[in-house]
């Protein structure tokens, strides 16, 4: 079965045993391989016809390839840091652009996130990964994992959000007031508030967001 190993923090090595051993990876993220590998572009994120239509409609498009073969395949993307996430039946929410690789047994899909996506400029939807196995998540700089539990909600800048897992509710929090309108905004007017039980992955960097300058 596929074995995931991090080479340093920015390269993922996946050893495939051949046969039906497959992983799904971000299109074009292969940097090297040994052995025999075949790469097949999956249309519409590899979620089937329905998934393809959903991804088109939601703008959460994901260029995914299926990697099959025997040997070791190395993946990397713009020197981004990689975190491995083990899933045991729970669901991982991640931005499509931050998902590097998933084990063959994991299912991917799309889900509605609400206003967080809108403020991030990433659309209103996010990608979900479900099942049992490992997923590799990309972040600009090593991701910081922050636990959310009852009585300890977490606020995250939309530009620094990467992924989350667990039973979390997210709501959009805005600090826009008359000062923002006057051009005296704080630059931190929009936050996503996570409540419940789970873990949120944030990156030590901010994507440019629509709300970022307010």
């Amino acid at each position: 079965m596929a074995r995931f190993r991090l080479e340093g923090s920015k390269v993922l090595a996946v050893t495939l045993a051949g046969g039906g051993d497959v992983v799904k990876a971000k299109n074009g993220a292969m940097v090297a391989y040994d052995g025999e590998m075949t790469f097949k572009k999956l249309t519409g994120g590899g979620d089937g016809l329905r998934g393809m239509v959903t991804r088109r409609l939601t703008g959460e498009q994901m260029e995914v390839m299926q990697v099959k073969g025997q040997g070791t395949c190395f993946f990397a993307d713009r020197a981004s840091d990689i975190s491995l996430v083990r899933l045991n039946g729970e669901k991982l929410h991640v931005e499509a652009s931050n998902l590097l690789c998933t084990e063959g047994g994991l299912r991917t899909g799309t889900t509605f996130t609400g206003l967080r996506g809108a403020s991030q400029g990433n659309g209103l939807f996010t990608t979900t990964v479900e099942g049992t196995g490992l997923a590799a998540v990309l972040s600009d700089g090593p991701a910081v994992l922050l636990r959310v539990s009852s009585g300890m909600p977490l606020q995250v800048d939309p530009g620094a959000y990467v992924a989350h897992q667990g039973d979390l509710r997210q709501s959009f929090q805005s600090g826009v007031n008359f000062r923002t309108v006057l051009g005296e905004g704080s630059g931190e007017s929009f936050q996503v508030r996570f409540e419940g039980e789970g873990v949120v992955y944030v990156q030590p960097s901010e994507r440019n967001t629509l709300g970022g300058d307010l």
Partner: protein
Amino acid sequence: MSGESPVHEPVVFDARTLPVNDNVNPYAFSVDLDGRWFLQKGKMIAYYGQIDFHGIGHGPLDHLIAASFHSPLHAADWVVAEGKGRLLLADRAFDVNSFDLDDGNLTVRSGNLLAFEPSLSLKQSIVPGFLTLIGTGKFIAASNGEVHFMEPPVRVDPQALVGWADCPSPCHHYDHAYLQGVLGGIRAMTGLGGASGEEHQFDFVGQGTVLIQSTEMLLAERNAGAVPDQAGVPGPG
């Protein structure tokens, strides 16, 4: 199944286990906020607790600006975080470090300063593009690659300079011998005959510390504020 895959259990932080005024990793810093801090706009990545962010302008924060900025001119790039909780700061995945000033002064390139305690006061440096912190307290600065501390006398590459503490003498230095004569002139003008790109440095002497980053890539400069356009004031125009 991938049971045998060597995956280290990652460290998960929460409001109690996040470091107190220390680095979470080389790229993220956790502030134990109880009161106020100044941040550069857009450097907060996450927080626990009750924290409000105020843009700086006229109004209830006027006295704070008077105490900590002395000049409203560059205040627009700064935010006051007010409340109680743990605050995570980061900047484009650059290295971040905290520094303590004890009744001292430190001058830093405007784009490198991330946050500081209000017990410090921030002023424009006479050197254009630099800011000076004076007083006692903690501040956080970003650098491209880790920061190294040098003792003067030292000459540093302009692009590698992050800042300096307590040295009163930052000045330009040119390699005179290399640029001497007709050949030297041609070299300097055209690069023919091998300009090393290292003919010009900043020179520091005296008592103090010079901070350099381990790259020559500059961080984008922040507006350090305009200075009054008057005789004897370097920088304007």
